[in-house]
């Protein structure tokens, strides 16, 4: 079925809207680069100039970065933008914004394929695309270089081309390519992508058998793409596991501690086998996993509170609009009541996105479950199309819904574009750019510049905003490669910069000041000091950093 001009026009409007929401003020909102974004940007710069990352690894399959082993694809994608636009906030965030926009187009085509037996599928597809365009969750991720948005694009592309390869066999290669690349973009996808691929294979097993040759070739193609990762696993297992290991609930000791506490309460006389029966790892971890799984479905989390981790937070708002949730639930009912063809796949996608996150601590986590945004938006579109068809008083319903959405959207716009950069700039490590600018103009006078490690990893901002030559940094950085308790590895210094960790300003200033040095101290450590040389302010007028000089 050919799409009508009207459909294309609507899609065009949605794309324009989505683009506006994603590209406007990309460099200024969020108000500053988060340390992870900055680091990826500098790695892209480093690879562009020297072919090596900041650690001096040639074309890395995983960026060691702060010791958290970032998947590399998003950084590679930044290279052309860094080449064209220079090292700036915009060039770092552009790949995310562009792929976010592409996902909005993709979801339109994907929904049409998933609901290919439904008459109103084009309408539903347009609405899914529209919902994704205005989704706070998706906008937030599109405007930041935070990995998951890249992963989602390739996952969606992989699923779409997989379905399409039934009609056009060669597309299976693009599918294999996308699934492989998604693995290079985000840790979570190393579980989610295979899980979804498996479901697709089971779902389309007859079609796959029908095109055995293409399928086997594409599988080999995909494996070849994954080969660098698999090979480096042998020498450095962290390349594959990396951060995923330190955030898992099995790494955290909470459950074990509780188990010991309960065992102690049983008393000495309690029989060991009985104690083990009641307090076993299986039950306690299951409970913890179920709790974490359910916390992602908690309505307060979805609508009002959102992710607790600051850069993924919109102040006083969740990750969905209030009406979204109503339509998602309705969509779910419709899906099963009218027995939609690929209903299980849609629901499976939600579960596959959430379950891996249930095995990590600090939940609910909106970024780890980000892949659920696609099925959620499809469900919401199904729900709203059904509701609108059912309601008799169309004008009333339309105006009510419009008003409700305008209100919700307006609230989001206020919270994200005004409140967040004004009152919560600290969530995004604000202030380093201004610090570096000051140091660039005044720093020549001093022999040492001391920057205690706080509000993110400071060294990377100096590299980024000074466009520090990568080949020099690769060789001269002082790196002890000691992980702290969160698994992060610090850079202790380079050039004339020192980045002490565990730095206590109140102690240092009395006992241990170095001559001819500039000290850049976060305001909370130096709350009472008045004799600073310069203060760096947050947009709301509070002080972020105080800069002290010791001659």
């Amino acid at each position, binding site marked *: 079925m050919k799409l009508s001009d009207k459909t294309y026009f609507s899609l065009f409007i949605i794309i324009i809207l989505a683009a506006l929401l994603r590209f406007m003020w990309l460099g200024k909102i969020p108000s500053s680069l988060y340390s992870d974004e900055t680091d990826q940007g500098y790695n892209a710069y480093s690879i562009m100039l020297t072919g090596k990352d900041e650690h001096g690894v040639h074309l890395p399959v995983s960026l060691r970065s702060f010791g958290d082993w970032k998947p590399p694809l998003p950084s590679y994608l930044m290279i052309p933008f860094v080449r064209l636009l220079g090292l700036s906030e915009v060039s770092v965030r552009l790949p995310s914004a562009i792929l976010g926009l592409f996902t909005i187009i993709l979801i339109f085509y994907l929904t049409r394929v998933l609901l290919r037996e439904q008459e109103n599928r084009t309408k539903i597809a347009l609405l899914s695309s529209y919902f994704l365009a205005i989704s706070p969750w998706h906008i937030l991720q599109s405007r930041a270089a935070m990995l998951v948005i890249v992963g989602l694009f390739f996952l969606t592309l992989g699923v779409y081309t997989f379905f399409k390869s039934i009609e056009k066999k060669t597309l299976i290669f693009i599918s294999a390519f996308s699934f492989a690349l998604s693995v290079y973009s985000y840790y979570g996808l190393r579980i989610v992508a295979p899980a979804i691929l498996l479901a697709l294979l089971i779902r389309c097993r007859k079609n796959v058998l029908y095109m055995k040759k293409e399928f086997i070739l594409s599988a080999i193609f995909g494996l070849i793409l994954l080969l660098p990762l698999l090979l480096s696993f042998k020498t450095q297992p962290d390349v594959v596991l990396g951060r995923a290991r330190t955030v898992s609930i099995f790494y955290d000791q909470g459950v074990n501690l*509780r188990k010991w506490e*309960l065992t102690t*309460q*049983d008393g000495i006389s309690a029989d060991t086998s009985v104690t083990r*029966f*009641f307090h076993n790892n299986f*039950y306690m971890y299951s*409970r913890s996993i*179920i*709790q974490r799984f*359910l*916390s992602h*479905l*908690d*309505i*307060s989390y979805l*609508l*009002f509170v959102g992710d607790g981790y600051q850069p993924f937070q919109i102040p006083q708002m969740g990750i969905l609009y209030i009406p979204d949730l109503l339509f998602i639930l309705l969509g779910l*009912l419709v899906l099963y*009541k009218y027995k939609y063809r690929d209903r299980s796949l849609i629901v499976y996608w939600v579960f596959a996105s959430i379950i891996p996150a249930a095995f990590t601590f600090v939940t609910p986590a909106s970024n780890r479950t980000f892949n659920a945004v696609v099925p959620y938006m499809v469900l919401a579109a199904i729900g709203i199309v059904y509701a609108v068809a059912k309601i008799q008083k169309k004008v009333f319903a339309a105006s009510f819904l419009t008003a409700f959405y305008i209100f919700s959207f307006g609230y989001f716009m206020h919270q994200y574009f005004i409140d967040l950069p004004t*009152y919560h700039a600290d969530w995004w490590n604000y202030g380093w750019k201004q610090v570096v600018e000051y140091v660039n103009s005044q720093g020549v006078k001093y022999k040492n510049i001391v920057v205690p490690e706080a509000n993110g990893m400071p060294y990377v901002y100096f590299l980024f905003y000074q466009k520090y030559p990568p080949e020099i940094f690769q060789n001269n950085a002082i790196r002890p490669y000691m992980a702290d308790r969160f698994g992060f590895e610090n850079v202790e210094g380079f050039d004339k910069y020192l980045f002490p960790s565990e730095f206590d300003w109140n102690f240092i200033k009395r006992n241990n000041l170095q001559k001819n040095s500039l000290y850049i101290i976060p305001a909370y450590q130096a709350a009472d000091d008045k004799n600073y040389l310069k203060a760096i302010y947050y947009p709301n007028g509070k002080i972020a950093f105080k800069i002290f000089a010791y001659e």
Partner: protein
Amino acid sequence: MVKLHLKYLPMNKRRFLLIVIFLLGFFVRVYHIEQVPPGLNRDEASIGYTAYSLLMSGKDEYGKSWPVSFKSFGDWKLPLYIYTTIPFVKLFGLTDIAVRLPSVLFGSFTIFIAYFLSRELFRGQGKNEFSLWMKKIPILSAFIFALSPWSIHLSRTGSEANFAVFFTSLGLLLHLRFNRNKWNILFGTFFLVLSLYIYHANHIFTLLLFLGLIVIYWRNYKRGLSFWVSIFIYIILSLFIYSQTLFTADKTKISGLFATSDLALVYANVTLNRLQHTKFPNTVASFFHNKLLYTAEYTIRNYIKSYSPEFLFINGGDNTQHNIPDFGNFYLWEAPFLLLGVAYLISQKNQHKNLLIYWLLIAPAAASITKDAPHTARMAVVMPLLEILIAYGFLSFIRIYVFNKKKYSYLSIFTLIILFIFNFAIWNDQYFIHFPQTRAATWGEGYTRLIAYLNQNGDFGASEVVMTRPEYSPYIYFLFYNKIDPIHFQDSVVRYAQTDEGFQHVAKFDNYYFRNIDWTDDLVIPNNLYIAWSDQVPGSATNSAVLVTSAVLQQLRNNNKDTSNLKIGDIVFTQKVGDIKLQNGDSMFTLIKTSKISTELN
């Protein structure tokens, strides 16, 4: 398709099964009732002593004869639970069991009501396979209710909320059976309105439920004499209790429950936000940030929390007395079936669908508008509906998913049974072993041991026994466990002035004083016994010695202390005479005795 014995169980077997379930439910509600929860909480102690006081003197603690609303600590308790406790106190004496038994009994009786109510709600029309499955809902509901952690825990705690559940569900049941007997509706209304005499949260819930019943079944009710009489009864009886409570004394108590009367919350959520508007005039700021909007906001948040998985299945509410550690109000395995039950309720046909959805929607009302939601006791009115829905979801699941797929049917059922038994075992361990140890400090165990220790040692011959933290109402435990003569207490008690939240605390009766201890001056008064929470006792207090000089005497007189026993030259020393330990080994109270040695010094 597996052929099962889907015959409806014959009447006598059904009855037998129901009785077995009832006995099982009663057993888990009454087993070790005196040890778990560990000791009475202060409301239970107050209920018990008030019943005793009425029994002995016909008056409450304040000397009011046969009141309808009891001031108690200033929380204005409703009458019915207290009056019901009187015969139990008569029978068992003033003991823990006498206070808890009414709740245990009525909580257990609710098992029957869950059975009959679900039978009424899911009365199938046809005689197909589906209706046969649905006919098993009542017995399964009764079973799930009998073993529901929510009901068991509230039944074991002398809970007014649990007591009210019996009356609301019984009233509802009779209402649904209005076409059997024209007087059913009258009795039903009577029981519904009785719940207003038990628990405050029902003042909102029962009203909404009654209005809902009338609106939903307006076409069905035969609007004859009994209908109008029951409405009349409802209005009269509810107006009577409202006149005794809502419109008079407990206004302060009621306003204290709302977030808008908490100045700290209002400042943080309204005033602070207004101050951020620097560019706009104050009217704009007040338009966006005001108490009304704030109330709406937190009501919605609370409402949503009331059905959150965290509250239902993982940890329960925030109040440590209403839940046990690491356990929700339902078993974890029930979670998917509750979800299914609700989904089926919404999507399938049912003659009482509107009522059930309405019940689900209004149940969190009382908890939502108050401060500390989600609240296990205020949400209790949702029982036994959720249990019934779990049974419904479970049976629908079994029918649709298991018995259509021959291969796995028995395996699935077997797995579910194992899961259930395991979960129940874990609950038992958590409830009877770990809960009393972890939460002993929130219950009355410390007081019980304290009073036993004091009695054993004759108060150490102290002339004054001073205990700290009068706001925790420790006096009630002395009354309860020492069975203080009510008339004597009513005459000798001295109370503090009422606080802003409406509480009124006891300052003294007999030689028991309830006030905060001044750790310098008080330790110089000889022959007193000081009882303080162990965490607040300064290290120097347990073994100090003070030589009384004229300066010391002067200072004591300036601070209005009784110095009649002291003269210059006395040495007053303190001595720790005991530590009251809880069963987990933590020390709760520390007892300090002061004594005097006279020396000749001029």
